[in-house]
């Protein structure tokens, strides 16, 4: 019964958090955005004390219920493990804890965060790993499904659905997501929660606390007949049925054991009652499965540009824009500085996933691997949008209002005469100036002595906020004649 409640809750959390990564309309975020913000590591990075303390209290009260209900990666592994259990019943067995490995992994994360080695931290963070899987593997399927509905809606002249572009945002990130998914699937299919009890640093921290939790599942030695059914159904491999002992640092409180026990010997009870029952003895034997340590493959995969060869005859061919070589990369509005972003971001991809203007994509740069990067080939950071800042759970992108955004400078535009069509095609343009939301661009005659000469854009960098409207609408291709250079630290103008 209790496990049923746990499963229902887990299902709700998992579905809604996954939808956070899939929903591109922003509706789900308005209601359930907090679900990303109560994730442990993001809350720590965001210095969100309320959440961190809340989760610690929860764990001290109920054990690692976080791992079976709130953590989407945990629930994902349960789903994967379900397939394993379908294939072979009672497949798990007790194994000794690998505490040294667990503490090393936790140590690595702490060092990585302190030293600012973002990619390492991003690889280890469970919520981010889930985000990458959801954003790179689930979202395209969701979007294709949506596009199919949009096609049907269009044929019925309905505006209920609109189609969205499905595009490869970052090759490395996709590969990391695939590798993570496959490794997790193999581990979870065979042994349940191996990842959570060997690699996951959050699991290690919570596991340390959960030893002392008030409520815990306890084996009643009086009722137990030693059949071992509980151990063979424990995804955390933490029940030593021979010794009637449970390793609470690894128990994720899934409560499956309670359902499995035909004798009714296991109960989820307060510590005081538990004291009445036998204490665990030292474990003698116990086999363990070999643990697969797999590192992500590094492969160079630039953005695959699909060439849009639309030979309608009636239309001029439009070639895709290419990413200009920016001296300083651009970081999103609200991220305050490159440093703040690098320090707080766990590369969960939530911002990348919700960006409706196709501006954010994961970085391929090693030191900022998979952290969001701004570029304007497919759209620009529109004035009415603050989605990424709303969803970020770690404080890497801090909440920002439209008004604040309009006076925050994340970069400045730079003009290149050689690319400008005024120079190359000898025609009037001024599209950059027309679309500048801060009126930072003026059009002036290129020949100071001839007021009738063609006009070129001049940029008042003091007014430019770096939103990229000019870069996006610039007709020069593949390289825009006007592009944005990022600023390491954002300024107010």
């Amino acid at each position, binding site marked *: 019964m209790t496990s049923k409640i746990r499963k229902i809750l887990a299902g709700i959390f998992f579905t809604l958090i996954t939808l956070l990564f899939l929903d591109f309309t922003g509706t789900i975020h308005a209601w359930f955005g907090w679900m990303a913000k109560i994730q442990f590591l993001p809350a720590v990075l965001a210095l969100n004390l309320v959440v961190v303390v809340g989760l610690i209290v929860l764990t001290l009260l109920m054990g690692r219920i976080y791992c079976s209900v709130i953590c989407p990666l945990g629930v994902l592994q349960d789903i994967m493990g379900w397939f394993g259990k379908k294939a072979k019943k009672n497949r798990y067995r007790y194994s000794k804890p690998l505490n040294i490995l667990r503490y090393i992994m936790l140590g690595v994360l702490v060092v990585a965060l302190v030293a600012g080695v973002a990619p390492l931290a991003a690889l280890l963070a469970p919520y981010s790993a889930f985000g990458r899987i959801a954003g790179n593997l689930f979202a395209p399927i969701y979007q294709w499904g949506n596009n199919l509905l949009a096609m049907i809606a269009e044929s019925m002249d309905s505006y209920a659905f609109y189609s969205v572009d499905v595009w490869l945002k970052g090759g490395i990130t996709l590969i990391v997501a695939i590798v993570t998914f496959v490794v997790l699937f193999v581990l979870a299919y065979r042994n349940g929660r191996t990842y959570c009890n060997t690699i996951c640093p959050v699991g290690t921290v919570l596991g340390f606390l959960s030893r002392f939790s008030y409520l815990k599942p306890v084996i009643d030695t009086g009722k137990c007949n030693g059949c071992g059914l509980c151990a063979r159904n424990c995804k955390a491999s933490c029940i030593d049925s021979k010794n009637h002992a449970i390793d609470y640092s690894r128990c994720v409180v899934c409560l499956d054991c309670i359902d499995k026990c035909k004798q009714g010997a296991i109960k989820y009870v307060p510590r005081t009652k538990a004291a009445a029952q036998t204490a665990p003895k030292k474990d003698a034997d116990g086999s363990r499965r070999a643990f697969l340590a797999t590192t992500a493959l590094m492969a160079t995969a630039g953005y695959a540009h699909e060439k849009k060869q639309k030979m309608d005859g009636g239309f*001029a061919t439009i070639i895709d824009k290419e990413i200009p070589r920016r001296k300083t990369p651009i970081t999103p509005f609200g991220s305050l500085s490159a440093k703040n972003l690098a320090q707080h971001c766990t590369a969960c991809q939530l911002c990348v996933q919700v960006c409706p203007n196709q501006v954010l994509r994961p970085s391929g740069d090693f030191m900022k691997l998979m952290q969001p990067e701004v570029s304007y080939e497919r759209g620009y950071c529109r004035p009415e949008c603050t989605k990424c800042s709303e969803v970020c759970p770690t404080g890497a992108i801090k909440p920002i209002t439209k008004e604040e955004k309009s006076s925050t400078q994340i970069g400045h535009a730079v003009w290149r005469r050689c690319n400008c069509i005024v120079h190359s*095609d000898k025609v009037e*343009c001024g599209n950059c100036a027309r679309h500048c939301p801060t009126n930072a661009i003026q059009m002036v005659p290129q020949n100071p002595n001839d007021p009738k000469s063609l006009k070129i854009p001049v940029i008042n960098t003091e007014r430019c906020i770096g939103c990229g409207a000019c870069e996006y609408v610039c007709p020069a291709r593949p390289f825009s004649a006007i592009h944005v250079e990022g600023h390491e630290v954002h300024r107010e103008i």
Partner: protein
Amino acid sequence: MNTNEMGRRSFLKKLGVATAVVSGASSLSSCSSDNKQAASGTQSKAGQGEMTYRVHPTNGDKVSILGYGCMRWPMKKNDQGKDIVDQEKVNELIDYALAHGVNYIDTAPVYLQGQSEAATGIALKRHPRDKFFIATKMSNFGTTDFDECVKIYKNSLEKLQVDYIDYYLLHSIGGGKGIETFNERFINNGLLDFLLKEREAGRIRNLGWSFHGDVKVFDHVLAMDVKWDFVQIQLNYVDWRHASRGNVNAEYLQAELDKKGVPSVIMEPLLGGRLSKMADHLVARLKQRRPEDSVASWAFRFAGHHKGVLTVLSGMTYKEHLEDNLRTYSPLEPLTDDELAFLEDTAVLYKNYPIVDCNDCKYCMPCPYGIDIPGILLHYNKCVNEGNVPKSSQDANYREARRAYLVSYDRTVERLRQADHCTGCGQCNEHCPQRINIPKEIERIDKFIEQLKQETL
């Protein structure tokens, strides 16, 4: 009101009259006039009546009042994804049209990215040469070089697979820099002299010109010491007295031609479909008078109404268009004075809508920067007609209209071809026969869309 109409309709059916001509408002008196009309042979069902023909005042050509315009042939995608004319459909349409009395076929070298003449030629080759009149044009917009121009003319004969052209036009004069451009294209290079000689030689049976734009050019060319066999003008019940900026009222043009006894060929009778795709209340207004006739039929009856009109061109893409027009013109039922006044009022109402005067002729295309100009303008018009162009965020249907506009915009026009990518270079402007200030309109629409997106309307 609807129930009234229904009642009248069933009543008329009992009388055995196919189509009601309701010039008055109420039932009994109008019925008696219907009977008179019916007796004099005004039943209009496609294939039932006879096509109305007009006789050319000087050469005696018996021309069908419905002419086939070949600017809007059905297209399909070939293996490379390129738009090509759907020849099979063209053949069917031409066969059907000729079988129902259409005998004037109008094309031009520049139509459909240069594919129209060849496709039309293929379809017509399957019919005896004396069963149709072919019209094509000197579309020397890109060059004024004599040899190049002659090549355009020779090419037309070849592509159409004919030895002579019945009606040959100086294509779209009145644009550019007015008389100066006209002289450059036809006088200074000796091209007109050449074409006149071709007429003498019989390879051009009739020589004329099509006109858009500067009235000075119209007056100047009409007054030239040349015998013009016909002139092609834009005429419809809106342009009759309410021509858009830069164009001339058709009432004037037609009167000038009548004075000279030069027959007119009518283009844009339906303004590229704008006079059939109208706002709901205009549709209701027209349908209320003649519930069983199409909205377009009003425009065609108007275009063919004037005695000096030789034929009315319609670019019929679909069989249904063709059938509907055949129904209207077999035979043509003249407009009553009351109906003329009614159409004039309708034109005034039509002009109240912020519709862009785009007829989807695609002369402006391809835009060198890839903008889908007609796509953007027509989408805007469609939204105006459907009431999806809100004036402010306080409008009752603001949210639905906003969504409808933005979603359908992305569906209709590729993102990189949308209004925000217009450079404003203005290279399109000189090609627009409707003299739309295209960059200005595109910018206006872009600003509107920005307001929708930013919710600052």
